[in-house]
């Protein structure tokens, strides 16, 4: 029997601070036993032996030959992860969760809305979409952060912005020296960009405050609930629907999620 609690070994190939305030650290990890198959939106549990495990969304795309995670320093395990240097061994369990329904997205317009450091799994999704560019119609990205230094994967974003097959709208909350993108909060920018809801799916990830104010805009743009997807976070332990803590109603965020469509969430207790 395969033991789902045992992590796989890997090594950190590259590690750097992603944001200028050093609160976010990105790790590129290569597994010892070859590559991991996954769908954008899935997550892994990273172990620090003696400290514990924490779940992180996979920020790399299946086509890349490393696993990328961006970790915000908030607690016990994440602080330990921040200490990790290049070439140190790490332990990983995954892929876990359901991931974004990329097959359902085929042949549709895709709108990606994100704020702050929630862009991780959306990077994975965006690269996946670009890798299979012919299968999808228009791709629009609206991504904002408090200031330019807090936008994830800044260089890549600039590269993508140059492409003509994807519309990237970057925003910061307030005027910033040298900033040439949008200025304002994500909901405002989304309303300004006003992507068509026709034949389109919308994927949204961000802090609770952003979600709260973006939802009315999404309704205004006429996106039906079943075509809006979001990725949830909960305290997780086992990651396989056993330990019982991450449930929202009868669904486990770790196993049946973390990606849920809005129409499913609307029927569940507001426990997220």
């Amino acid at each position, binding site marked *: 029997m395969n033991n789902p609690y045992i992590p796989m070994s890997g090594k950190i190939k590259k590690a750097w601070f992603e944001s200028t305030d050093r609160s976010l650290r990105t790790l590129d990890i290569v597994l010892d036993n070859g590559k991991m198959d996954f769908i954008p939106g899935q997550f892994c549990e990273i172990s620090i032996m003696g400290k*514990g495990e924490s779940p992180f969304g996979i920020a790399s795309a299946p086509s890349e030959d490393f696993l990328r995670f961006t970790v915000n320093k908030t*607690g*016990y395990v994440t*602080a330990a992860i921040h200490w990790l240097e290049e070439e140190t061994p790490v332990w990983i369990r995954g892929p876990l969760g359901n991931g974004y329904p990329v097959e359902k997205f085929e042949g549709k317009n895709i709108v990606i809305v994100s704020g702050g450091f929630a862009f991780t799994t959306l990077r994975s999704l965006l690269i996946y979409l670009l890798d299979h560019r012919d299968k999808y119609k228009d791709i629009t990205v609206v991504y904002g952060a408090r200031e330019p230094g807090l936008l994830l994967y800044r260089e890549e974003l600039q590269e993508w912005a140059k492409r003509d097959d994807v519309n990237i709208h970057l925003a910061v909350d307030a005027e910033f020296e040298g900033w040439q993108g949008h200025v304002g909060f994500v909901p405002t920018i989304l309303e300004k960009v006003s992507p068509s809801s026709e034949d389109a799916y919308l994927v949204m990830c961000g802090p609770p405050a952003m979600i709260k104010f973006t939802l009315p805009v999404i309704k205004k743009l006429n996106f039906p609930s079943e075509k809006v997807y979001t990725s949830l976070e909960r305290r997780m332990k086992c990651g396989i629907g056993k330990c019982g803590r991450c449930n929202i109603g009868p669904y486990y965020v770790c196993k049946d999620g973390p990606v849920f469509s809005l129409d499913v969430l609307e029927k569940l207790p507001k426990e997220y």
Partner: protein
Amino acid sequence: MADKIVENIRKEAKRILEEKIVDIVIGFEKGTLPYTASPVFIENPDDVDKLIWNRYCHNNLAVYLRNFPDKKIGIIVKGCDSRSIVALMAEKQLTRENIYIIGVPCEGMLDKNKLLEEFGDNPPIEVKEEFLYPSCQYCEHKNPVIYDFLTGEPVQEKEEEPYPDVVEFEKKTLDERWKYFQEEASKCIRCYACRQACPMCYCEECFVDTNSPKWLDPGIDLPDLQVWHIIRAYHQAGRCVDCGACERACPMDIKILWLTRKLNKDVRDLFEFEIGIDPEKVPPLGTFSLYDKEEFLI
């Protein structure tokens, strides 16, 4: 006597609810099992007939006081519960104006388990002292120390030495005491009922729940359980009113009062202090005397 108390409780509860002196009254209703009463929360003056009083009303209702931060609360208390309120006031957790205290002189609560064992489901008419909860046996404050309304005549207080059990226990050898502690602690399942039942355990984050620092490993390795009991009791030093709610709440029947009672005795002997009498007096570990004993120093 008891009927008179019940009548007085209901009347007073109805009055304070009707006159809007309080928004909610915390009292006891009939329990669903033999020898039990259960906490009840009355907001409608018409519901006061749910309120009862008998010798099974052992819960310390003061534990609920902090659950209603924006309400004026009426509460029915025994001697020990009233001391909890005073202790909470001394720690600035409550304001006296927000609480209306209905005091009940208490003759001690009866131990459900002992009664079940002895009489099964048929409650006896006459009850002897031996069926009292251990926590009630040495009670020094049967009458509420603070109240707005007293439901009956004060009962006679005991004048005896209140810690005979602690004195007796101290006579045991070191290893006997350790063995006893091990036996009791090993029963623990870490449900934290003792903590939750205690009005004084109001920390937002308990030391067992933090992970940085991680004071205690999870699980039921014996030292984990022992350290939990040591520190839980120690956090009560000079704060415990000896109501015994922790021990009565324990589903595993662990004796835990002998820990806090030892601390209480020490606080009395070393610092001449008793908590829960005067809300203006600073608890013993929040103050000091230049002349505190220090024989224990090397």
